[in-house]
């Protein structure tokens, strides 16, 4: 996915025309053929094809868990789509976004449970969703009002307050109504005209339809007057105003659309989980939505969906230690293949690595038997394969911790070094990485998951600052 020109674009450098031929001729082989085939059809055909592929997914797996991860992914994707309107297109840093998700969930919860009144309120889902989404859109308008006066990071902080206020309010104010920290439970499932959605697969398809419809709608908006207005406001609010665009109105509209999309996702989430709890709508979740939008490429519809997918699926893969191991070793190998050129050098490094491992294992084993008494923590064939290669002490915690710190320092040194020294250092570092993984990281699977998520974010953004599908942008400060 790398572009030929990795330098950031600069104003006034007319590389566009010069590179048009290159763009046209780029790539050969199957991937380029697919690209060309897709270019020939319209956007909605593409969307339909992708939707159809995704729709097959629940049929291919028998696991409810996989489908549930799909549901979570689609929820995150929908949220990312809404946030993309506010952040990616209109350029408003909204840190209170996830409150609308919560608002949607709580709104639906109150209108579809026994929470209010003596026998509760149980509206038909469609009605409840419409009420909640419209209310959220209005609330979005209201909370967008500060954007008339505040810009950039100042707007960010005020919206952050709104997000916090939402969590505080549902937790502390009127716990009789919102259930306080225990939330609202016993929410009705979605029902449309007498048809109840009760299975995970059912929710998957409901969400798939919602996501695809939103993607289509946003695509049409993006290429319409409204979309151009949003992006013009992002690029230069003052110039936009002088080009007949009512900046404040356009900003409020963006807030409102974002809020409505988030609330829609919230209603489905509440029905799916059959409960709404305050801790689900706190800042850590907001961070994930942002990560999705920006990782995918701020400003791109497909990017928002892809980014959310990457975030959600990566987090799930990391939940399972054996998959995490595959990801860990796989990523290291992939990085090596991409970064170490030519092939001969790569071969040398790998050979040296194997030899280094056996040598270290032999030497340390000769000095102290207990230092190699442990077994690699990775189970399955990986663990067996590494058994006599990587050193695992009987009590690996202390050495593992030290190695972890040394590994980080080593990586720091690696970036500083150039040439042969770099290649030479690479071998012990790779070994150290395996050592740390087998001694500490697998044992603390849950913590490792978070550490790797952090590392992946850092590496991904460094590798591709504009996001996976984003286009390179010029920023005028």
């Amino acid at each position, binding site marked *: 996915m790398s572009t030929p020109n990795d330098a950031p674009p600069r104003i006034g450098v007319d590389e566009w025309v010069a590179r048009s031929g290159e763009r046209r001729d780029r790539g050969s082989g199957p991937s380029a053929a697919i690209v060309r085939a897709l*270019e020939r059809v319209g956007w909605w055909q593409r969307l339909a094809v992708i939707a159809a592929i995704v729709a097959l997914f629940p049929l291919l797996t028998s696991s409810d868990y996989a489908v549930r991860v799909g549901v979570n992914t689609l929820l995150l994707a929908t949220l990312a789509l809404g946030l993309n309107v506010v952040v990616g297109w209109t350029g408003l840093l909204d840190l209170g976004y996830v409150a609308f998700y919560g608002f949607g969930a709580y709104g639906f919860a109150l209108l579809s449970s026994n929470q209010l009144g003596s026998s509760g309120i149980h509206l038909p889902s469609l009605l409840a969703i419409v009420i909640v989404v419209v209310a959220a859109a209005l609330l979005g308008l209201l909370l967008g009002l500060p954007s008339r006066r505040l810009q950039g990071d100042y707007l960010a902080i005020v919206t952050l307050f709104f997000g916090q206020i939402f969590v505080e309010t549902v937790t502390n104010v009127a716990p009789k109504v919102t259930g306080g920290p225990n*939330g609202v439970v016993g929410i009705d499932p979605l029902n449309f005209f007498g048809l109840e959605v009760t299975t995970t697969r059912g929710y998957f398809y409901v969400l798939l339809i919602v996501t695809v419809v939103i993607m289509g709608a946003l695509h049409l908006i993006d290429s319409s007057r409204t979309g151009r207005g949003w992006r013009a406001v992002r690029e230069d609010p003052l110039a936009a105003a002088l080009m007949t665009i009512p900046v404040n109105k356009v900003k409020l509209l963006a807030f409102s659309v974002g809020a409505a999309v988030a609330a829609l996702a919230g209603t489905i989430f509440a029905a799916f989980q059959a409960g709404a709890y305050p801790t689900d709508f706190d800042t850590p979740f907001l961070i994930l939505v942002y990560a999705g939008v920006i990782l995918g490429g701020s400003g791109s519809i497909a990017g928002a*969906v892809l980014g959310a997918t990457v975030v959600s699926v990566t987090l799930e893969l990391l939940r399972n*230690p054996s998959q995490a191991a595959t990801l860990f070793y796989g990523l290291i190998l992939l990085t090596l293949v991409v970064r170490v050129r030519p092939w001969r050098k790569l071969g040398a490094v790998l050979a040296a690595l194997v030899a280094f491992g056996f040598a270290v294992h032999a030497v340390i084993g000769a000095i102290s038997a207990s230092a190699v008494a442990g077994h690699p923590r990775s189970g399955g064939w990986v663990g067996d394969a590494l058994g006599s290669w990587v050193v695992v002490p009987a009590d690996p915690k202390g050495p593992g911790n030290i190695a972890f710190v040394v590994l980080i320092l080593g990586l720091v040194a690696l970036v500083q070094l150039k040439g042969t020294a770099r290649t030479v250092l690479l071998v012990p570092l790779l070994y150290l990485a395996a050592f740390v993984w087998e001694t500490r990281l697998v044992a603390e699977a849950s913590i490792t998951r978070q550490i790797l998520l952090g590392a992946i974010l850092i590496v991904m953004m460094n590798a591709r600052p504009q996001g996976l599908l984003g286009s390179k942008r010029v920023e005028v400060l």
Partner: protein
Amino acid sequence: MNARDPRSHGRRWAAAAASATLLAFGLAACGSSSGNSGSGSQTSANAGSQTGASTGSSGGKACTAAIGIEAPITGQVAQLGGEQLHFTQFALDQYNQKNGTSFSLVQGDTQLTPAQATTVTQQFISNDKIMAIVGPAGSQEVSAIGPLASRANLAMISGSATAAALTDGGKYPTFFRVVPRDAVQAANDADYIIKTLRPKQVMIVDDQSSYSTGLAAAVEPLLKQAGIQVDHESVNQKQTDFSSVVSKITPETGVVFLPWQVATSSQQFGQNLSEQGKKAVIFATDGSYSPGQFRSPGAYVSSFAPDITAIPEDADLARQIKARYGSFGTYGPPYYASAIVAADAIDAVCRSGQTPTRANVLAQVRKTSAATSILGQPIRFDAKGDLVDAKFSIFKVGPDGRYSAVPSA
């Protein structure tokens, strides 16, 4: 999609298509490999018992199964979850070693959010090696995953979800807890405060968590009935300085009731009290029961178990855990007990010659009858999943920070 270049447009869509396919495969991998997903973390539980597994005692073949733990292992309350994880891991390691079983532990980090707890539970359900869940930690998580676990016949044995509503009306038939419900502790504490401490005024400070507000709501009416004036305050769980709340304590306030989740916060509250020279006595609940961390002299702590470090049979165990994982408080021991309940149930199924299934493990958990436990009391469950004969002990913190049990009123 700023520069409307149809070509780059197509490329992005192609990438989206490719990644959607990738996602499908990824998810399929999630699903298909969940059957053996235990293998990854299996070793983490029985790493300490490599030899244990071979000395099988139950009919020649080792009893093999996985147990899932749901706890906030990372995130804002990792203090609690870490301890829960360590005790569970330790319990299973020991159990395997003693009984020749081969029970592995699968970690499920929920960060104390119901949304994540639901996903983790679904993952556990998909993993057909998992026979029981230890946890989840929070009452709101239990209500979120209760229906899922019930449908899957999956027993969940919590050591910290104490909200009374969870076992009312048998909503979650597969839910059990080895700790008494709020009502028991609330009645016990209120009784002691009213009859022994006899304050004119009590300040209740909750920490806005599910655990805390539940206890506070149960204690408040009892105190009021006894004619005690109650001042209810509340602090955010993430707060670290309580001086402002402490400054609101009047000389008439005899007792400050702290149903808090985090022992070190109670300790900080005690510091702020003595810093401002206030004379009120702290009465904390089991969330603060942690001899290493909450040692405000003169304070009272209630707990569902006598000090496990004071039980002679537990002393060795406490020492080992401390050596392996560092100091601990109130959240670990019940998880040890939960893990043992789960392990015993699976082992019992194996001993009876059956292959463990969720249904027969669940039935066995329901029949649990342990004469003793790490908590120093027998463990049996009533029809709703609550502990039978739950008792609470009250401790006074001495000048040296040591806990000593006081006779109940």
